[in-house]
């Protein structure tokens, strides 16, 4: 499947539906669908960002609805021009309405899935980091080399959660940052 086939999948579908009754632009309907999917996923990703981090980047639902309306209207125009008879144009317009609505819903779901995947990846990563730290502390292998604030290296033991290293020479050192595992 080439790149060109991928961005004309709706054309292939409608060719199988109406054969030679429709001579639409090969790319227009598919690109419209992809654009609506993008708008929908921006909506859900923006909502997730707002609820998690209070970042307000969500496009308003009104604007998204209007974009969907515009995309559908342009596809109605394409249908009227490209179809050989009026009935086919009507059915194609209604199909586009359905498809645009479904694409929006799909986009919202896709955005949600993307957010979920990113959250899961972050969670797994955090788990790995914390588990490694915990293991390192419990097994006593915290007895390693650390870089102090002054730039010199000391050999000693550091408890998890503190930034003080008990050096082997009996002195305490403040390390550069508490994340220096």
């Amino acid at each position, binding site marked *: 499947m080439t790149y060109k086939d991928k961005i004309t999948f709706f054309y292939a579908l409608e060719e199988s539906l109406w054969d030679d009754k429709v*001579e639409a*632009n*090969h*790319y*227009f309907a598919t690109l419209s669908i992809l*654009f609506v999917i993008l708008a929908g996923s921006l909506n859900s990703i923006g909502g997730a960002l707002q609820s998690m981090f209070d970042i307000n980047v*969500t*496009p*308003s*639902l*009104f*604007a998204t*609805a*209007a*974009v969907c*309306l*515009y995309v559908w*209207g*342009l596809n*109605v*125009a*394409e249908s*009227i*021009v490209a179809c050989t008879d009026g009935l086919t144009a009507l059915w194609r317009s209604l199909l586009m309405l359905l498809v645009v609505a479904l694409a929006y819903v799909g986009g919202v779901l896709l955005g949600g899935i993307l957010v979920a995947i990113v959250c899961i990846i972050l969670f797994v990563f955090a788990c790995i980091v914390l588990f490694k730290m915990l293991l390192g502390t419990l097994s006593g292998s915290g007895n390693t080399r650390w870089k102090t604030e002054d730039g010199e290296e000391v050999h000693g033991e550091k408890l998890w959660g503190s930034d003080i290293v008990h050096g082997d020479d009996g002195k305490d050192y403040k390390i550069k940052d508490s994340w220096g595992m």
Partner: protein
Amino acid sequence: MSEYRICPQCGERVENAPEQHYCMFCGSDLTEEVPPCPSLQAGNNLEENNVTEDASVWVDYKPHWWQTLVGIYLALLVLGIFLLSTFQPLLYYVELRLFRFTALATGLGIAVLLAGVRNRASLTTLVIFLVTDILSTLYWLLDIIPLMGDFAPLIFVLSLYLPTVYAYSLLAQNNEFQNDDRTWLNFLAVINVLNVFWESTPLWFNSTGDVNPLSYINYFNWVISPLTACAWWKVARSAAFAGGYDKDAPCDFSPLNRYMAMILIAPALMSVGMFFLSKYMYVFPN
């Protein structure tokens, strides 16, 4: 669509595909083996291959330099107006009254295209565009609209909206466009007719208490403006304005065609939808 072959009956170019069993020009049977013409690969310049071709066929034309110039000019005009109205601080450096000449500036580019019209339909289209642009400028410049009274929306729409719609349908009906270029023309027609429609918004929409739907166009202009600029570029460089004026070429001036239907129905649907969206926007949470 990689190769063409020559029909043995009429000599027209036919797509060299296994499912192409008949010539789409003369209808003769093509099931027997016809060797593909090696000099007629798609995308080759026909003039180089010494193939005589009817001038109205879409492949065979070269845009003139003034078409490219008009394409760039109109695209920059669209993008410039969008940028000016989006980045408000830029307006500090611009005389606001200059915006009243937007239609006239568009008309200036369209007037240059008059040099390369192909048939009487293209000529009529350009003349209608010019007249509506001048009318639109006069309306806003001379403050004629308040003088029209109750009939203002009617006169406005009848004198700008309907001729524009007819002109676009005339252009699309009587000129050969490539499939993709036709979509660009459709896009341009729908958006420009919508713009004429929205221009009259203050005349028919009572904005006190309600939200003017016009203000929400700004959201989509990030997408619409670049596409409109591209559409102007495509249409200005199309075969319709590539020269070779033929006075006797047959033209269909009837307004009853599918393009008329398209340009009337699609923007009307979009406008009605926008109207109800803005009317019931309290349904939406944000």
